């Protein structure tokens, strides 16, 4: 259950960060020019790095829960 809670928290935080970026695009008049296409598509790179980092973080959290499980099995406090 713990891991599901973690992932839920993660998604909420990502939404909070990305929501900001999307909100900025709303007032631009040019059609199709959402933020991911603007600035020479550098935002795509940012998104890719963010995805990679989220992947690393999820991996760390899974490792975390695995170690926790072993600790529970061996009853290490």
């Amino acid at each position, binding site marked *: 259950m713990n891991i599901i809670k973690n992932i839920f*928290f993660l998604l909420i935080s990502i939404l909070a960060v990305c929501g900001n970026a999307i909100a900025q695009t709303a007032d631009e008049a040019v059609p199709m020019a959402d933020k991911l296409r603007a600035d020479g598509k550098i935002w795509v790179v940012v998104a890719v790095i*963010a995805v990679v980092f989220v992947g690393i973080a999820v991996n760390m959290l899974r490792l975390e829960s695995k170690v926790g499980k072993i*600790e529970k099995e061996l009853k290490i406090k």
Partner: protein
Amino acid sequence: MKKIWWKILCIVLLLYVIINGLMGPVPHLPILNESIRNTYFHVALWLAMTTLLFTSMVFSVRYLSSGNIRHDDVASELAKSGLFYGILGCLSGSVWANFTWGDPWPNDPKLNGAAVGILIYLAYLLLRSSFEDEQRRARIASVYNIFAFAVFVPLIYILPRLTDSLHPGSGGNSTFGSYDMNNDLRMVFYPAIIGWILFGLWLAELRIRIKRINRFREEDFLKVDKS
């Protein structure tokens, strides 16, 4: 330490640093150009490393005063994650230096000091691995760790400032703090430092727990062996 909230905080902070650090507003400076954004990654890594090594030293002192082997576990794993950050800092610094100073390793006192500092901490790990007896290893390594940190700080923070160095804050160069650091940078720089510190602690914590599991298993094994 096993609370989850600071790990979530670490992930959130680093995500914020990645997104805002790459796309947020930064001061326009000659030569540095967009590479000023490296402050959030390269410089923050070094500060995080210093914090980790300092904490490692604190735990070494605590081990010496308490004799609790767990404190030594913490000290050694913190030193390892600090060393990991140091190597990353050297590599990332080389890339940055190549494009702003024109040389991947200009013979800058700060760079050489950092290299010597890393060697000192490598020697710490070597020292640890050369003892069989746990308490003996812990005691000698703890003493070494305290001296290592005491040498490390002058090497990378004090000596470079006394001579000419390419790094900001040395030999007539202005520091980031006084002239170049503006509020746009600070908004990301401080969270970056905290985020990287938490990430290093997380890495160390996982290794400490694995170490404890291994120790527990060994003790269990010995108990079964005796009975």
